[in-house]
């Protein structure tokens, strides 16, 4: 059965975080900012809290690490009720990253990162090697950045340092409240990608707040769409939220272009690559011609000695005798790696004269291409999927046979 009934509470393994009837009423306010929230967060997942401004996302985060004390309800971490344990000790087990980062400006980056290890009484040597390890992990060269002060770092670098600081004592859980919200779009995209790659190795349980549905879809293993009072409108995987929004609120929030957004969930490595004829730079003209004739494509991709895409050659280019192969035709552009999303590959494709994105492995060697046909095929598959899914749900609600003429 599809997970119709399990939208709020995952079954199976014990969750890393369980919120039970979590409620916060701020003094002097009639409506609770967080209203009886029940939620399970599975170990090793990135769970996104997304919703309109003021719906209670930040309050929910602060309830989890008890920067705000709940009016009622319980917080269970790794099976242990932490609703009334010492909050300072609790927080040393939970990494916390906020939009403004909040690095201590009077301390060096290394002292900032060492904050929690120092409180936990680690010895100097261990702290020093941990700091260097973390700096390298978030892409800041330790020997360059260790002794700098926050004011010497760019916004993106500060956010990296903030992430390193939150990870310092290797907490099982990280709370990240709009961590990339104040960063320019290009840097944000890079930080998101780096963070996803980092998460593949650290496998933390992460609660991540954003108000940007695109960021939610990109970053989340699971997304909780919240309405006012931190009420869960839908708690599901990004693919399911896009293909089967639970109600109008979710559909509105996800917005138009849901199938285009779903493209960001499929990766280049998930689709079958299209092969073009190839030739080495040192091939003879007749070899290239033969390769071209043997295929139904109108161009040959010339690869360099390391099999990296160099140039596109069409038949008429070969007529020019005055230039070597490596200088004929036009340069190979729109090159992507297999981990890139189809959405990004589509973007690249639009820049290419041949109308396809070239896929290469880590060393830059040619693997194949993705073209428009691949992408539109994928969109159709996703649509079909969504249709079948909603049909399956209808059948759950109205089993065939009952009331059918």
């Amino acid at each position, binding site marked *: 059965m599809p997970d119709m009934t399990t939208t709020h509470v995952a079954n199976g393994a014990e969750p890393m975080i369980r919120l039970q009837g979590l409620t916060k009423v701020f003094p002097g306010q009639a409506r609770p900012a967080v209203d009886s929230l029940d939620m399970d967060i599975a170990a090793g997942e990135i769970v996104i809290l997304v919703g309109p401004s003021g719906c209670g996302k930040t309050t929910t985060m602060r309830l989890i690490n008890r920067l705000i004390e709940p009016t009622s309800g319980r917080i269970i971490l790794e099976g242990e009720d932490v609703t009334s344990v010492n909050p300072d000790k*609790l*927080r040393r087990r939970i990494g916390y990253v*906020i939009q403004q980062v*909040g690095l201590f400006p*009077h*301390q*060096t980056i290394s002292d900032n990162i060492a904050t929690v290890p120092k*409180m936990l009484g680690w010895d100097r040597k261990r702290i020093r090697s941990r700091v260097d390890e973390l700096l390298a992990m978030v892409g800041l060269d330790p020997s360059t950045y260790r002794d700098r002060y926050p004011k010497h770092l760019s916004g993106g670098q500060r956010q990296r340092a903030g992430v390193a600081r939150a990870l310092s004592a290797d907490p099982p859980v990280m709370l990240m409240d709009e961590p990339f919200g104040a960063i320019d779009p290009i840097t944000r995209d890079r930080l998101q990608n780096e963070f996803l790659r980092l998460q593949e190795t650290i496998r933390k349980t992460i609660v991540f707040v954003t108000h940007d549905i695109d960021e939610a879809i990109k970053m989340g293993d699971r997304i909780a769409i919240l309405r006012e009072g931190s009420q869960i409108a839908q708690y599901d995987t990004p693919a399911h939220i896009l293909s089967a929004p639970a109600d109008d609120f979710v559909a509105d929030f996800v917005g138009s272009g849901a199938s285009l957004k779903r493209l960001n969930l499929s990766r280049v490595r998930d689709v079958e690559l299209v092969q073009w004829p190839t030739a080495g730079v040192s091939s003879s003209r007749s070899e290239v011609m033969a390769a071209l004739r043997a295929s139904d494509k109108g161009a040959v991709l010339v690869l360099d000695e390391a099999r990296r895409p160099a140039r596109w050659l069409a038949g008429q280019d070969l007529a020019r005798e005055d230039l070597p192969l490596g200088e004929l035709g036009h340069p190979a552009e729109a090159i992507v790696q297999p981990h890139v999303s189809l959405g990004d590959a589509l973007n690249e494709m639009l820049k290419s004269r041949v109308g396809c994105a070239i896929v290469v492995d880590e060393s830059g060697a040619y693997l194949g291409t993705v073209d428009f046909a691949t992408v539109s095929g994928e969109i159709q598959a996703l649509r079909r999927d969504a249709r079948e899914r909603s049909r399956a749900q209808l059948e759950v609600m109205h089993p065939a046979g009952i009331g059918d003429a």
Partner: protein
Amino acid sequence: MTLVDYLADQGDRLFGLTIEHAMIVLISVALSTIIGVTIGVLTYATATPRRISLAITGVFLTIPSFALFGLLVPILGLGTRSAVVALVMYGLLPIVRNTVTGLRIVDPAIIESGQGMGMGSFRLLFRIKLPLAWPVIITGIRVAAVITVGIAAIAAVINGPGLGKDIFRALARFGTPTSVPQTLSAILGIIIIAVLIDLAFVFIARLTTSRGIRA
């Protein structure tokens, strides 16, 4: 008699008075700092206590110094003790005010991230808030010191130590040949103390402020 002759003749005595004067200023400012920063730390976070502490230390500064000395003598007697207490009271306002301001302008995001990492309120105060407020606090201490150098001269009326003694002696012998150079030399000493203290504070502020927040 010229000022230069007077200085040549009375140099040793004047030097002693100047040291005395500087000492009473430094002792008073040290006490003002301890008391003022404590009051600031205890009251900055909540509105009513904060207003009360600023109002009271503000009133101290408006009491004319002669009147304050007059009030203190019946309780503490003539001499250094009354003088120090009065000077401490005058030094409080700039220090309390700057401590309160300095602590209140610390970026809330910095405090939130500190709390979020499990720093207790004590650690947060001494490791984060006070170091960040320090440049503002030390400016307050510097202002207090400069105010105190001037007012300390008047403490001579209640038998306080320092260069004020010479000013009052000269005033009592007004019209005699040495009264003007005596007054001028005392003023010169006070100016020198004020300038040196000011310079010392610039130096100390630099030395005690983290490179990360230095202007």
